[in-house]
């Protein structure tokens, strides 16, 4: 048993950290923190990272990767998050699926572009009437032989306005006996005629999108997996994500920043005596969810992880809860000043805490709400009976 990154992983961590220290400049950080999606500075950084082969370390060399361990993927996400660098996560995660279920032609067509930072792919699962119950999607793809014609609507497709492609879950059989057997997955060029992207903003200021499809023609070669085999592709995305996740360098930094702030501003304030214990509690939970996530990733890459039940999923639950706790506590630490937007001269810590507090609810909802995760862990991990 050992809990040390292997030399290759350590070297990768050092390399990407130093690279981002140097290249993730204030313009990129400003774009990231604006929550408006990858802007020009971010795209430039992504291309630079791509040139250094930092974006998809896990992928085979021939598709632009480095053939490194899933742990390097976790390290990448951690460093990107900690540096407030842009997040090409979806394109790479989708690429993991393409690697598993795509044709050779699809791999050659899309993966090198993602790995080099030239293109990114937005997730297109959710619809107004298909959220957690994702098998209920209605966006219809009508088979016309050489091509499909798509009609319908997606929602909450963040980054769709700055991505080149859409990873789109559609319905191809309205009469399937079970609704998840009538789904198909496509990669759609977002410049195709008939696509309208309309902005939608979260209360935390994050730009997301509604995406409307009106008689959009998509070539058959863009179908991923089998027709009506979309559910399998969707699940492959889940199973492909061996990276249990969970390094928390950025979060630990926030906790340390709050500690420094408290020590500097409230050293003699008798009403601040609760803060050390509260921050320590959050630090403990953050660190434990980190150890758990990294452990799950390590087990995963050794081929022994239960996807549910022990590890990544479980670490995500603790991490999600802790994140919410962190930013609510942070607001309480800052007191009345916490509510000031960053343009106020009195805003503490550049308004960063307020931004994260407002954005915090998203994290326990996106990519599978906590309730869905709990259901999966309960039924698949613990073997509890289904309804």
């Amino acid at each position, binding site marked *: 048993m050992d809990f040390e990154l292997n030399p290759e992983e350590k070297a990768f961590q050092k390399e990407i950290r130093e690279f981002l220290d140097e290249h993730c400049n204030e313009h990129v950080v400003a774009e990231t923190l604006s929550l408006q999606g990858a802007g020009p500075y971010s795209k430039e950084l992504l291309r630079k990272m791509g040139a250094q082969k930092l974006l998809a370390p896990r992928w085979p060399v021939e598709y632009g990767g480095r053939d490194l361990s899933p742990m390097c993927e976790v390290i990448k996400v951690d460093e990107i998050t900690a540096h407030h660098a842009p997040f090409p996560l979806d394109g790479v995660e989708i690429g993991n699926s393409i690697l598993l279920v795509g044709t050779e032609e699809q791999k050659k067509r899309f993966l090198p572009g993602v790995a080099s930072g030239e293109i990114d792919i937005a997730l297109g699962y959710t619809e107004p009437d298909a959220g957690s119950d994702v098998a209920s999607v209605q966006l219809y793809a009508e088979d016309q032989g050489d091509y499909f014609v798509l009609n319908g609507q997606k929602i909450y497709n963040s980054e769709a306005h700055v991505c080149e492609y859409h990873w789109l879950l559609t319905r191809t059989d309205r009469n399937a006996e079970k609704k998840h057997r009538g789904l198909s997955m496509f990669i759609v060029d977002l410049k195709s005629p008939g696509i309208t992207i309309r902005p939608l903003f979260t209360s935390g200021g994050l730009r997301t999108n509604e995406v409307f499809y009106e008689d959009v023609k998509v070539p058959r070669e863009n179908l991923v997996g089998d027709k009506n085999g979309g559910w399998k592709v969707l699940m492959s995305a889940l199973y492909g994500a061996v990276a249990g996740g969970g390094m928390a360098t950025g979060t630990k930094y926030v906790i340390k920043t709050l500690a420094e702030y408290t020590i500097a501003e409230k050293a003699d304030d008798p009403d601040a005596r609760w803060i050390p214990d509260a921050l320590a509690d959050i*630090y*403990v*939970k953050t660190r434990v969810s980190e150890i758990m996530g990294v452990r799950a990733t390590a087990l995963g890459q050794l081929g022994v992880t239960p996807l549910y039940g022990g590890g990544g999923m479980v670490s995500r639950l603790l991490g999600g809860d802790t994140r919410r706790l962190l930013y609510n506590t942070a607001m309480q630490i800052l007191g009345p000043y916490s509510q000031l937007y960053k343009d106020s001269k009195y805003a503490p810590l550049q308004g960063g805490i307020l931004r994260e507090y407002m954005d915090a609810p998203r994290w326990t909802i996106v990519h599978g709400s906590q309730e869905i995760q709990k259901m999966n862990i309960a039924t698949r991990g613990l073997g509890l009976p289904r309804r």
Partner: protein
Amino acid sequence: MDPRLSEEQEILQKSARDFLTDKCPRSLVREMEKDEKGYSPQLWQEMADLGWMGLVFPEKYGGGDMSFLDLAVLLEEMGRVLLPGPYFSTVVLGGLSILDLGTEAQKEKYLPEIINGKAVFTMALTESDGKYQASSIKTRAAAANGNYVISGTKMFVPDASVADYFLCVARTDDKAKNPEDGITIFIVDAGSPGIKKTVLKTIAGDKPCEVVFKDVKVPEENILGKLNLGWAEVQKIIERAAIAKSCEMVGGMQVALDMTVAYVKERVQFDVPVGVFQAVQHHCVYMLVETEGARAAAYEAAWLVSTGRPYSAEAAITKAFASDAYQRVVALGTQAHGGVSIIEDHDMPLYYRRAKASELAFGDARFHRKTVARELGFKVP
């Protein structure tokens, strides 16, 4: 990184589980709560014969030459069955401290006794305020003609009623500036004149004692470690014990979780097993989160100890998490079981009571969060 158990550890885990399932059923746990000694000397000797007392000690003293991480595996198994008896006190508090701090003569004298199952050790540390801090140590050891004379009262000394030796933490220099200075650890023969032990009746039935030392003479050669510089070592002992205790707690959590999952799959209400209800499922999922979290932290911390890396910070993180986690696991497990599990002869209350005792041992969550807060830069008293 490879968080898997080694083949050797898997064998240890399996043989320990088989042995303890057979030899330490819950009926024995209940019986020992009422027993005067609180453990079965026969089982104790069998454990010694299996090499468990000597597991982590070097071969030259008769030990098994295995690591702290191997010990962690064994402790988790002991925590599963709530093994009654002075194993933890003898090996973790006594033996490891002697191995760490002892002179060669001390090691040669005491370690073989421990390894053979002939000697029970414990540590007489906490005093009237029940705290794990230097300023709480009021017990004094005064030098007199090559001896030290110890006087003071220790509280919650684990397994004191059956101990052959105490590691007694006492103040040897009253004039020291800081409370951390002037503290020394002594190896005290429990049969020495002037020692009075009173068993305290506690929820876990584990019989910690009040131990009064009244002019107890101890030869100078029984100083463990350095005169007046003992507190730093005591801290290390507490931290290592906190990690070891967390490993034990993980075993208990896992059993409470397994017991609960098995029950909600079978218990039918409203014509369905109650495990189909999301409210119940979520209880079980959070029990898993707590258990897996504590396990990940405990094993990582044990690995730090095993490999000679610094472990103070991770010990605090581990025990802070495990203390709250075990409590939460038994509370949720009880809730998911419903009425049946609050009846005295159900097994859940055995775990419920020990969760609290383990939480209190070697610093509760709040105590360890103070250490974490200090790491964050706070000046915490």
